[in-house]
């Protein structure tokens, strides 16, 4: 199994996922640093991702769009690059933008920190995601899951627990 550990903090609206890969650090870094590779794994199944702009320098931006090839949903995203220390650390802040590139109404910043380190003969990737608001989390989920695939059973369970309490 790739995912090694998941730590969630509801109060801080943050999540840390640690994954391990049996390969060199530079190979893992390459999947973030090369837009052609990034677009092969970022979008959910059924969506085509295009990273049209990929300036991996502090102060630079990474712009991408994800579209449903059948002409359905389309999402545009921009990451502001905060820190780059190849091949071990990348920090971006995520803003979802309108078609003209301006931030969407009500959108809040999501911060994503990627740390890559050697762990014996494997490479460990630690992803820390922090959200400012629940709406920001919802946006991130909506962009990560193809339309119609989102299971609401976990929500129903949670709501039932709340009502029964």
């Amino acid at each position: 199994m790739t995912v090694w550990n998941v730590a969630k903090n509801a109060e801080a609206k943050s999540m840390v996922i640690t994954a391990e890969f049996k390969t060199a650090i530079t190979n893992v870094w390459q999947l973030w640093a090369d837009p052609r590779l990034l677009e092969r794994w970022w979008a959910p199944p059924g969506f085509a991702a295009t990273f049209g702009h990929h300036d991996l320098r502090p102060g630079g931006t990474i712009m991408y769009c994800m579209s449903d090839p059948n002409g359905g949903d389309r999402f545009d995203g921009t990451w502001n690059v905060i820190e780059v220390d190849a091949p071990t650390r990348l920090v971006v802040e995520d803003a979802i933008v309108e078609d003209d590139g301006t931030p969407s109404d009500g959108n809040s910043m999501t911060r994503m920190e990627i740390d890559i380190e050697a762990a014996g003969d494997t490479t460990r990737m630690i992803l820390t995601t922090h959200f400012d608001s629940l709406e920001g989390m919802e946006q991130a989920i909506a962009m990560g899951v193809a339309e119609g695939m989102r299971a609401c059973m976990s929500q129903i369970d949670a709501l039932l627990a709340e009502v029964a309490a």
Partner: protein
Amino acid sequence: MVVESLHRGRQTDRLFFALSDATRRDIVTKTLDRERSVSELGRLYPISLTAVQKHVEVLVDAGLVSKHRSGREQLVRGEVSQLLRAHTLLDELEAVWRARLERFEDVLDETTGRKSE
């Protein structure tokens, strides 16, 4: 007690019925972050204000939102705690990232496999 379990069964029915509609689920989500007036909710969906009011009533019956008056406005507030919502969202986000990391590993295997050829 039978009466109690019957009551709970009805409450569960109301809850499932309330959550069976996408617009109603969205109203719960929208009113959890902050209170919204019925007229504000009406502008969010391509349905009549009366239809929105009916949805809100169903949600009130299910205990998912509460309604109170502020001046001329009817305000709707989601009644599921923020923290519970955050827990649920984090679970969903974990699922998103697990799937994404599986794709990550697939691409990694393909690229490093090619390099070693």
